[in-house]
C-alpha cells in the first residue's frame, strides 16, 4: 500500500530470547482508527510499544509519515500514547500535566496557556484544571491523559486498552468521545483491546492478532460476518464450531451425520442461530441463563456440547429437559480448511 501513513514491515519483536511477534506486516492509512485486537499475550501491546519507540525491534522497519523511524528514540517520534493506567503525573495539577510536553518544547507561556485550556476544554475538564490526578475520578483521569497527548498534536495517537478501566456507562461515553475526537482532529489512532465489542464499535479497521501473528485484517463488518479462520470466528461469537468430514460434523464426543452443503473445513453457528424447541436433533439442557433479549442454553448432545439461544419471551426449558434443536444449514458460516487451523 503506497499511501500508508504507518507502515510496519517484517517487524520482529522479542523480549530477550522470547519472540513475541515473529514477523508482522501492517499498513495503516492516515486518519484511520485501527483496533489491535486479540487475547492477552497475542503481541498487540508489544506491537504498540514498538510503534511508540518504547521497545526496539529485533529486525524490520517502522515507517511513520513516510519516514523510517525504526531507530528514532521515543521522545523524538511525535507519537502520543494514552496508557492503560493513564500514567498521569501525581505531583502536578491537571493543567500542569497537560502543559508538561508543551513546556519541554519551550513554547511561549501564553501559547502554552491557551493550548492547555483548549485541550482541557476539548475533553470537558476546564473546571478541574487545578485538581491533582488523585482528586479526579477514573473517567476524568482518562480524559486528562487523552488531553495531555492531544495537545502535543501527535502524528499518531496510541491508546492502550482505553476503555478497560471504566465502568459500563462511562465506557459508552468514552467510546463516543474517542470517535468524536478522532473525526474532529483527523489524527491516526491505534488502540489495543482484548474486547471484540469495543473493537467492533470503535474501529474503522480491526487487526486481529493471535500468538504474534495477524490472523485477519478488515472492517468490523468483515470480521463479524466473514471471519476467515476458526480463531476469528470463535473470537467474534461463533461459539459452535465443528469440523466437517464428508457428511459428518465432528464434536468433542462423537460425530453427527447430517447433510450440510460443505464437505471439509469447519461449520460455525452463533448461539442465536440455533433455536431450541424443534428440529431433527436432540440434547439435554445443562444450563440456562437469562441475557436480556435472549435466553441462552447449554445443551449436551451425543456428539458434544452446543450453545443455543431463544428469544427471552419463549417458553423456558429447565435444566435436565430433553429438547429438540436444529443446526440450520443456511445460517452456518463455512470455514474452508486454512493452514493455521487446528
Amino acid at each position: 500500500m503506497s499511501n500508508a501513513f504507518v507502515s510496519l514491515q517484517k517487524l520482529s519483536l522479542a523480549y530477550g530470547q522470547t519472540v513475541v511477534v515473529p514477523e508482522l506486516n501492517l499498513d495503516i492509512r492516515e486518519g484511520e482508527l485501527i483496533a489491535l485486537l486479540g487475547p492477552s499475550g497475542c503481541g498487540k501491546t508489544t506491537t504498540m510499544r514498538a510503534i511508540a519507540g518504547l521497545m526496539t525491534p529485533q529486525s524490520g522497519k517502522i515507517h511513520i509519515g513516510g519516514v523510517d523511524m525504526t531507530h528514532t528514540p521515543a521522545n523524538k517520534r511525535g507519537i502520543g500514547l494514552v496508557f492503560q493506567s493513564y500514567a498521569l503525573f501525581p505531583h502536578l495539577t491537571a493543567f500542569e500535566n497537560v502543559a508538561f510536553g508543551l513546556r519541554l518544547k519551550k513554547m511561549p507561556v501564553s501559547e502554552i496557556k491557551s493550548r492547555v485550556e483548549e485541550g482541557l476544554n476539548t475533553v470537558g475538564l476546564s473546571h478541574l484544571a487545578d485538581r491533582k490526578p488523585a482528586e479526579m475520578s477514573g473517567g476524568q483521569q482518562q480524559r486528562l491523559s487523552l488531553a495531555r497527548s492531544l495537545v502535543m498534536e501527535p502524528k499518531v495517537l496510541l491508546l492502550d486498552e482505553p476503555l478497560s478501566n471504566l465502568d459500563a456507562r462511562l465506557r459508552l461515553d468514552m467510546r463516543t468521545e474517542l470517535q468524536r475526537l478522532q473525526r474532529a482532529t483527523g489524527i491516526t489512532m491505534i488502540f489495543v483491546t482484548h474486547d471484540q465489542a469495543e473493537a467492533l464499535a470503535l474501529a474503522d479497521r480491526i487487526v486481529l492478532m493471535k500468538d504474534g501473528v495477524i490472523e485477519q485484517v478488515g472492517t468490523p463488518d468483515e470480521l463479524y460476518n466473514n471471519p476467515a479462520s476458526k480463531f476469528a470466528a470463535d473470537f467474534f461469537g461463533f461459539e459452535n464450531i465443528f469440523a466437517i468430514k464428508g457428511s459428518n460434523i465432528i464434536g468433542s464426543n462423537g460425530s453427527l451425520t447430517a447433510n450440510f452443503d460443505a464437505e471439509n473445513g469447519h461449520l460455525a453457528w452463533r448461539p442465536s442461530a440455533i433455536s431450541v424447541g424443534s428440529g431433527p436433533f436432540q440434547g439435554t439442557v445443562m444450563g440456562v441463563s437469562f441475557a436480556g433479549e435472549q435466553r441462552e442454553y447449554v445443551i449436551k448432545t451425543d456428539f458434544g456440547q452446543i450453545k443455543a439461544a431463544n428469544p427471552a419471551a419463549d417458553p423456558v426449558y429447565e435444566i435436565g429437559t430433553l429438547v429438540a434443536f436444529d443446526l440450520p444449514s443456511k445460517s452456518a458460516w463455512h470455514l474452508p480448511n486454512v493452514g493455521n487451523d487446528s
Partner: protein
Amino acid sequence: MTSKWTSRLIIGLTLTFLIGPFFIIIFAGMSAGDFMTFPPDGLSLKWYMKVFTVESFRESFALSLFLAIFGTIAALILGVPAAYAISRYNIPYAETIKTVVAAPIIVPGIIVGLALLRYLVVPLSFTVTLALFMAHTALVLPYAVRVVSSSLNNLRSDMEEAAVLLGCSRIGAFMRVVLPNIQSGVLAAFILGFVTSFNQVPVSLFLSGPGVRTLPIDMLSYMEITYDPSVAALSALLALLSVAIVFLAEKFLGFSRYV
C-alpha cells in the same frame, strides 16, 4: 482477667525499660551536685548550661553534624541511582547487590572501623576526617538504598515512559517525574541516615584521632576523665533532638511508612 493483667504488666515493664533510662538521664543531668547520680543531688540546670561551654563538645558536635549531613548526602547521591537501577531494570544479581549494599549494617561496626583504620588511614595516610566521612557514607548507604527503593517500588514506571513520549530524555524524566514523586522517601532516608550517622559509635571509635572525634566518642572519653553530670545533660539533649526530628518527620512525612 489474669491474662489482661499479665499483658498490662508486660507492656508496663517494656515501657519502663525502653523509656525509663531516658528519664533517668534527663534527671541525672539536672543534678545540683558534682557527680552523676540518680536520684539527683538537688535540682539545677547548671550542667545543661555547662554543656555548651565545653570546647571539645562544641568541636565534636560540629564534626558529627558535618558527618551526618554530608555523609548522608553522599550516601543519597550514591544510593538513589542504585535504588533506581535495582527497582527499574532487570539487572543481573540484583539480590546480591542488595545484600552487599546492606553489608555495612550487618558486619559489626568494630570490624568496619578496624578495617578502615588498618587499610585506609594507616597505609594510605588518609586523614581521619576523610576516613570518618567515608565510613559514615558507607554506613548510611544501606538505609538510603532501602528507603528510596521502597518509595520507587510504589511509583509506576509507565509515568516515566509517558514523560519520554511527551519529549523528555530518560534523565529528564527522572528529574521531572521520578524525583518529585519520591522526594518524601528521599527526605525520610536523609533523616534516618542523619540519625544513624549521628549516633554511630563503634566505627567512629576506631577512626577518632587526637583532636578529631565525633560527639558520642568525645562524650565517652570525657566521662573517662570527668564523671560530672554534664554528659547526662548532653545525652538528654541529644535524645530530645533525635525524638524531635523523628516526631516532625512522622508528622509531616509519615516517616514510619519508610522504615
